[in-house]
């Protein structure tokens, strides 16, 4: 499977401009709510029309504004799993699946029974969508989509309607089903956890623009830009002044820091993830005396918010630590964990 997307569209007062390629596996688009992720999927599926650009799926041009090509959604062979699953409420499970299968009613029966069994839905044939649990609805929607034999599957915030425990189970289950069918997936999510867990490739989107594309682990490890760092969950970001090849001054935290990596001229910010900061008991290199601002406990970890203890107007920094540990007096910024950002 190969999908190339390069589109722009103006809507509700902002300009969307997205460019990426995928050639199989699972690609995730990570972006904040309202950044144009869902609109991107809708353009690919043919539900919305981009103003300009080109969409190509397996050498088939689906959209080309220059050549005036715009293949209707029904002929694109792109599966779309809607956030609310979009099961047809006036139809039973059986009919929801059957409507997708071409041919006579008699021929549909065995196909429906087989897919119901595969998706652990046997016995629910005669139920209406409103009589199903969230997980069952999702499986019916997935089964229905796979019956339409799509070349690629688009998932729009697939797990946002589910909560905690159920979510973890369903996430795994769903991706297993999709893998069973050998389909490639393009999903959008605002959850970095979801993208990290399921997508080998990712695109970072901010304010309608696709910022960068790459291997998911690489991007999380080295986001490269300030926006990407923020979207991948890095809360501690500071503007910098470059002092040398391996030394900088973090303006927001009022501290001189040494880095392991060479600081290029394009670097304007640094970031450091809260769980990579090291609590220490005495001053030293890359170490800051802290002034405690507050502590918030989540079920399994503690977030410590602090300021530079020697500079009153420095911005706050988050430390994430195990609950068993004590709140430290000093914090060390490990050289090799400092993210250099442009």
């Amino acid at each position: 499977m190969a999908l190339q997307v390069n589109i722009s569209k103006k809507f509700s007062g902002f300009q969307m401009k997205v460019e990426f390629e995928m050639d199989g596996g699972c690609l995730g688009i990570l972006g904040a709510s309202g950044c144009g992720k869902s609109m991107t999927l809708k353009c690919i599926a043919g539900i919305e029309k981009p103003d300009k650009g080109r969409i190509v799926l397996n050498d088939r041009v689906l959209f080309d504004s220059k050549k005036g090509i715009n293949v209707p959604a029904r002929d694109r062979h792109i599966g779309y799993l809607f956030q609310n699953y979009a099961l047809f409420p006036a139809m039973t499970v059986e009919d929801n699946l059957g409507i997708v299968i071409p041919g006579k009613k008699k021929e549909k029966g065995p196909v429906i029974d087989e897919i119901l069994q595969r998706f652990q839905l046997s016995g629910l044939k005669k139920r209406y969508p409103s009589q199903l649990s969230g997980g069952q609805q999702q499986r019916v929607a997935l089964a229905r989509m796979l019956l339409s034999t799509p070349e690629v599957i688009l998932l729009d915030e697939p797990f946002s309607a589910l909560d905690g425990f159920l979510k973890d189970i369903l996430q795994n289950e769903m991706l297993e089903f999709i893998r069973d069918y050998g389909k490639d997936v393009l999903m959008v999510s605002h959850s970095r956890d979801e993208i990290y867990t399921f997508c080998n490739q990712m695109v970072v989107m901010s304010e309608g623009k696709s910022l960068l594309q790459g291997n998911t682990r690489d991007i999380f490890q080295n986001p490269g830009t300030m926006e990407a760092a923020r979207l991948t969950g890095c809360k501690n970001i500071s503007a910098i002044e470059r002092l040398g090849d391996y030394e900088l001054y973090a303006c927001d935290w009022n501290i001189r820091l040494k880095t392991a990596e060479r600081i290029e001229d394009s670097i304007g910010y640094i970031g450091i993830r809260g769980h990579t900061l090291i609590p220490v008991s005495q001053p030293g290199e890359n170490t800051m005396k802290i002034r405690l601002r507050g502590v918030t406990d989540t079920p399994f970890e503690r977030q410590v918010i602090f300021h530079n203890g020697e500079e009153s107007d420095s911005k706050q920094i988050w430390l994430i630590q195990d609950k068993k540990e004590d709140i430290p007096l000093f914090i060390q910024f490990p050289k090799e964990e400092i993210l250099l950002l442009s």
Partner: protein
Amino acid sequence: METLLHTIDFSPLFLSLKSGILATVLTFFLGTAAARGVMRLNHRAKSVVDGILTLPLVLPPTVAGFILLFLFSLRRPLGAYLWEHYEVKLVQTWLGCVMAAFVIAFPLMYRNARAAFEQVDVTMIYAGRTLGLSERKIFWKIIVPMAGPGLASGTVLSFSRAIGEYGATTMLAGNILGKTRTISVAIATEVAAGNWEVAGFWVLVIVVISFLMVVLINLVSGEGSKDFSGWR
């Protein structure tokens, strides 16, 4: 009472039912199709087309009757054409009753259908498209069933309006006993002739039918509706 029933000519009842049912069938399909068509227009075109389609609802029926007469009179081009080529005549005929009832009842069906379609989540349409279904299948198999209660109440309302139609009917179809005299026309005629008992009988018939229809609407559209117990 017995003698009254024996003296009454029941043809207006059958005529009303017959033309009412036929007009309702027409209204159902054309009103639903019109609502679908209007839903696909952009906002500006929608306002104008909607205005035209709703007009018979707000105009006095005599005005609608006048316009129908103006179109279908044998002395006018359209009426003459229909008569010459298809031997179809609407003036002073039973077909005229159907046409008048249809035109007056149409906006009720159209507006109810449109309101019902507006309630349908558009993602259903998108989902149908991405699943490869034709627009026709999406509309008749997915949207119409979802809009079911609204369409049903529109149909019943149209029927009640159609069997009671008076103004446009007398203008276009006239008042010929056994041919174009429907119940509502009969009531006016009997009153004019001083036959209060007969007129009263027809009034009773219309009241009963209309009441049953309204109860029916409440039953079909109340099914599966929201919980209103908070109002009590």
